């Protein structure tokens, strides 16, 4: 009996210990240039808190005053990114995670968590084209624009060359304005780091304002090098790819998972949103929005937010940490920013002119959910100039159920904001509310 009691006591202690962790702070303390950084907390059992997916069932997201939200497209298969062509046609990229190996028991659990956090719909591997011929904000034509892609994400058009960033390569397709379907085979411009391990697989893509260079976001192959440093070659970086030759170099490094690559329209600086590391506590490390400087190192994996050392990385590299620079603007921890667009339209209220919208996919490893919304970051003179404000919410209900999760953003031909919602299998259109 004594031993049985001991076993019971041990189990109770185990549950008590694994249940604790620091209480999450107010995310507002981690918005802007100088986020509060709490001490590191390493868990016995990290808090896995995934919002249960319940779907929209006819409801829509909620927009800030002065704005309205309508469904632009529904019934999609995991739409994750958007691109608006010069004639106003909207490309919707349906995509999903490529299969990966199970290297240790934790991978089985993490795959399950990932599955719980998304919709049950099998992701598409294609790009759809939507056309709104009468300008009422509701598309009336839909075609399969490009099919049989390989976990595509980024799209960029330069002249008549349409580039698609599959998870393992940038591929070029011929495109003429007005075309609704591409059947021509693509030509590979440049390989990108793909499988067999392909942890952060979304390859964001944009073209330089002069059209000579492409920039591709290549996320890390792990949370914090747990797949080995040799799996990180060319990763956690933004690549600059020469359009003419396909040659590439690492334009900036130490960016754990860079997405939403965009040139700021006033200064023509490259900006991106970055997903920072997990399992150091509910409020470490804040995800961020930053200008990306040529040749800069932003810390991953050795340090975060400048030169704060991550003890999980061995061997450490003090030489690299000494070079690490802090990013520009924290978005708070684990919000998972995946979409970024600078607002260059005029039809939204003047309040939203000149700044950036950020799509926050939402947290899974924080006891109180964070993100699951679109925020607006005001800019002045090409720099963030104030606190982020909520623009589109309602993706969460009752605090822990998800109707959808926002990912990629775009501005359509009429200046409305488009939101890809991979979990709600929809695209939402945000425009000015009728006066």
């Amino acid at each position, binding site marked *: 009996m*004594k*031993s*049985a009691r*001991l*076993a019971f006591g*041990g*189990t109770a202690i*185990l549950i008590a210990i*694994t249940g604790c962790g620091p209480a999450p702070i107010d995310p507002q303390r981690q918005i802007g240039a100088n986020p509060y950084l709490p001490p590191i907390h*390493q*868990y*016995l*059992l*990290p808090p896995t808190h995934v919002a249960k997916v319940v779907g929209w069932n006819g409801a829509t997201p909620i927009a800030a005053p002065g704005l309205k939200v309508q469904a632009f497209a529904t019934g999609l298969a995991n739409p994750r990114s958007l691109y608006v062509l010069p004639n106003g046609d909207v490309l919707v990229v349906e995509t999903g995670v490529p299969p990966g190996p199970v*290297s*240790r*028991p*934790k991978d089985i*659990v993490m795959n399950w968590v990932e599955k719980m956090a998304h919709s049950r719909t099998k992701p598409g591997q294609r790009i759809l084209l939507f056309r709104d011929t009468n300008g009422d904000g509701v598309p009336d034509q839909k075609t399969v624009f490009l099919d049989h892609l390989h976990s595509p994400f980024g799209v960029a058009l330069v002249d008549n060359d349409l580039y698609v960033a599959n998870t393992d390569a940038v591929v070029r397709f011929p495109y003429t304005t007005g075309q609704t379907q591409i059947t021509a085979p693509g030509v590979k411009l440049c390989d990108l780091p793909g499988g067999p391990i392909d942890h952060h697989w979304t390859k964001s893509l944009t073209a330089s304002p002069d059209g000579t260079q492409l920039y591709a976001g290549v996320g890390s192959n*792990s*949370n*914090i*090098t*747990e*797949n*080995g440093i040799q799996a990180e070659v060319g990763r956690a970086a933004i690549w600059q790819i020469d359009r003419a030759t396909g040659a590439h170099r690492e334009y900036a490094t130490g960016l754990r998972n860079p997405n939403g690559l965009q040139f700021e329209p006033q200064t023509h600086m490259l900006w991106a949103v970055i997903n920072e590391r*997990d*399992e150091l506590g509910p409020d470490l490390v804040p995800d961020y929005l930053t200008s990306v400087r040529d040749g800069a190192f932003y810390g991953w994996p050795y340090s975060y937010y400048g030169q704060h050392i991550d*003890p*999980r*990385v*061995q*061997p450490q590299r003090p030489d690299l940490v000494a070079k690490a620079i802090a990013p520009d603007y924290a978005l708070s921890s684990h919000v998972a920013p995946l979409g970024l667009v600078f607002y260059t339209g005029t039809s939204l209220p003047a309040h939203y002119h000149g700044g950036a919208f950020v799509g926050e996919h939402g947290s899974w490893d924080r006891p109180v959910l964070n993100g699951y919304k679109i925020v607006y970051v005001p800019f002045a003179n090409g720099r963030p100039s104030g606190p982020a404000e909520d623009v589109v919410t309602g993706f969460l209900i009752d605090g822990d159920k998800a109707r959808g999760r926002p990912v990629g953003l775009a501005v359509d031909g009429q200046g409305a904001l488009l939101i890809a919602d991979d979990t709600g299998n929809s695209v939402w259109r945000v425009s000015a509310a009728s006066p």
Partner: protein
Amino acid sequence: MPMPSINPRSTVSLHGHPLHAMLVPVPIVCFVGTLVTDIVYWQTAAMLWADISAWLLMVGLLVSLFAATAGLIDFFGDRRIRELRAAWIHGLGNIAALILSIFNALIHTRDAYTSVVPSGLILSALVVAILLVTGWNGWTMVYRHGVGVRDKGSA
């Protein structure tokens, strides 16, 4: 009513072979292996070794749950086992090793270096140290007191 045996009997046995004794080599080898691969990881920082530790811990824990259940039933199945000091040391020590290994498996779910160094490595070493003591006492139970051993001459 069967004739009372001379040696203490194992309640959970297959054709006279105690199940507990057949299962325990698996967790013992797994937990000793975890210490070895933890040490190699500590020295090389090559993630493969930490991954192997995590698998060894998982398999060791799964099989030890069956081994512990069989052992506990045997312990409560014959009063003469409970009267042995060695049986108490063996049982309580192994329960401690099992609980520490559960913690150790959780530590090993962390990412990269701190999944092993220092907490994981210390727990792995502690578990092997406990297993040396409980193993010794287990052998005392069998080889000195004949726990689970068939009586000479019986069928």
